[in-house]
């Protein structure tokens, strides 16, 4: 597993199904992830079964986020990983309410960034965040992500269009952060 | 087919195969597209067979661009079409270089946008264009696309990092531009 300060990143297991199914049924969590349709437990289980049996790799790394005490609190994955362009898009969810807004998500992000730049040798890590998700925006900014632009009206929920903000961090920026000791690692 | 002023948009056919293969193996053409690797005729044929096997639809509106004289000069399509958000990404390739910078690409774009807003009932059309593709950016701006931001160093080409420019046009802007 990949060790952080508050959390570790580990491979997903079948035993994650119960929690994943519960998070997939939580309307508000799903809204923040950009999903609008609830998923059956059967579908959650089927999709988990298909990817836990494949080893993690460059193309589609999906992690479970676990506290140092072994409590499974969320998930993290990289998408659209391009070897030639050395970039990836990230999606993160802290599904367990008691662990939200307490630094666990940020620690998972920082741990991932060390892995992405230090082990996967990528040059760029980016993400999409909805304009209405103020909490996530603040957390990403604190980790060093920079806002690159707003895709206007690129999401629809709660009866209206919302902007999708593109944020990113480049290798050089992360390295400068490390050098300045802004991140305790 | 969908009629423009200089071009028409029609469904792709297997008889487009040789031209498509020639264009996507021409590095002058593909330097601006997300295609990096050469494509064999066999691979292109397999891809085309899959494309023409299904009728054009909301999920896959892929068009061949033909001049009014019936010359096939390129292709244009919408993809990642999302019904609830009413949003799609646009791609265009004018493969026949002698038709560059003569208004054919712009007309194909305007025709497709008219279809996207007027028939598919979309709210937003976006595209990503390479920072070094100044000609395309100018053409997109003329059609009403607005730059929203740049994905920095999102691309590695010709030995260097490049930005991907994010541009979009919204329904209300298209309508008022006439």
């Amino acid at each position, binding site marked *: 597993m990949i060790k952080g300060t508050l959390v570790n990143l580990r491979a997903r297991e079948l035993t994650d199904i119960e929690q994943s199914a519960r998070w997939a*049924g*939580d*309307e508000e969590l799903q809204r923040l992830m950009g999903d*609008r*349709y*609830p*998923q*059956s*437990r*059967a*579908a959650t289980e*089927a999709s988990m079964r298909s990817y836990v049996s494949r080893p993690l790799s460059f193309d589609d790394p999906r992690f479970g986020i676990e506290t140092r005490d072994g409590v499974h609190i969320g998930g993290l994955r990289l998408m659209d990983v391009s070897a030639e362009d050395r970039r990836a898009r990230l999606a993160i969810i802290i599904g367990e309410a008691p662990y939200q807004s307490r630094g666990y998500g940020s620690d998972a992000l920082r741990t991932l960034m060390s892995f992405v730049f230090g082990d996967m040798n990528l040059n760029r890590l980016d993400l999409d965040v909805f304009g209405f998700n103020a909490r996530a925006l603040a957390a990403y900014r604190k980790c060093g992500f920079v806002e690159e632009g707003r895709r206007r009206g690129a999401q*629809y*929920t*709660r*009866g209206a269009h919302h902007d999708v903000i593109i944020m990113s961090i480049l290798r050089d920026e992360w390295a400068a952060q490390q050098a300045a000791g802004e991140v305790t690692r | 087919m969908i009629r423009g002023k200089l071009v028409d948009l029609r469904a792709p056919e297997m008889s487009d195969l040789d031209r498509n293969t020639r264009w996507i193996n021409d590095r002058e053409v593909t330097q601006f597209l997300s295609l990096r690797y050469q494509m064999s005729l066999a691979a292109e044929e397999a891809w085309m067979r899959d494309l023409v096997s299904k009728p054009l639809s*909301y999920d896959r509106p892929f068009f061949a661009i033909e001049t009014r004289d019936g010359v096939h000069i390129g292709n244009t399509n919408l993809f990642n*079409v999302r*019904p*609830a*958000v*009413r949003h799609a990404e646009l791609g265009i390739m004018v493969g026949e270089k002698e038709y560059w910078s003569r208004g054919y690409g712009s007309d194909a774009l305007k025709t497709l946008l008219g279809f996207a807003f007027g*028939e*598919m*009932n979309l709210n937003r059309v976006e595209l990503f264009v390479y920072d070094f593709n100044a000609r395309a950016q100018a053409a997109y701006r003329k059609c009403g696309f607005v730059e929203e931001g740049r994905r920095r160093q999102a691309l590695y080409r010709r030995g260097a990092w490049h930005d991907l420019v994010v541009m979009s046009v919204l329904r209300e802007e298209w309508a008022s531009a006439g």
Partner: protein
Amino acid sequence: MIEGTLVNLRAVEMSDLERYAVWFNDPEVTRFLNKRYPFSLAAEEAWLRENTGKPLSYDHVTFAIDTKDGVHIGSIAFHKAVPEDRRAELGITIGDKAYWSRGYGTDAMRTLLRFGFDEMNLYRIELTVDARNERAQACYRKCGFVEEVRLRQHRYAEGAYHDTLWMGILRDEWAALQEADEVRR
């Protein structure tokens, strides 16, 4: 899941099979539905397998209706959603007769209407109802549906021809109803 006031809407699961098999073989329940013939358990199971096999999406919106206590009482769905026309057809069945005429059907409808307009970005929602089904028509009218067409002698059942009504509700009409409800509260 999607939360209403009296009910929640969730994805259908294989474990719903027994109840569906009972409901769709109950002539009182199916009297005004489009189901003429008795259903075998095997056929019901095949339908359920097909339905739970695909994830919910714009083209596939079928929900189970649960009370807030988790009792499964029926199902509700959008059929034939057309993205260009932003239109879908709605169908609802309250299979557990103990929950008829107690506001559960109305709440399920309102919850799905809100999902259809506020999350799927539909413009028009429509349905058909047997002209003899007064109870259902009252529920639909309460939700804002307006009678648009009467198809004369559209359906043959119980030895005679019966009319079918088309009812529809538009986005603006729904929004106006919501505003009126806000003012009342």
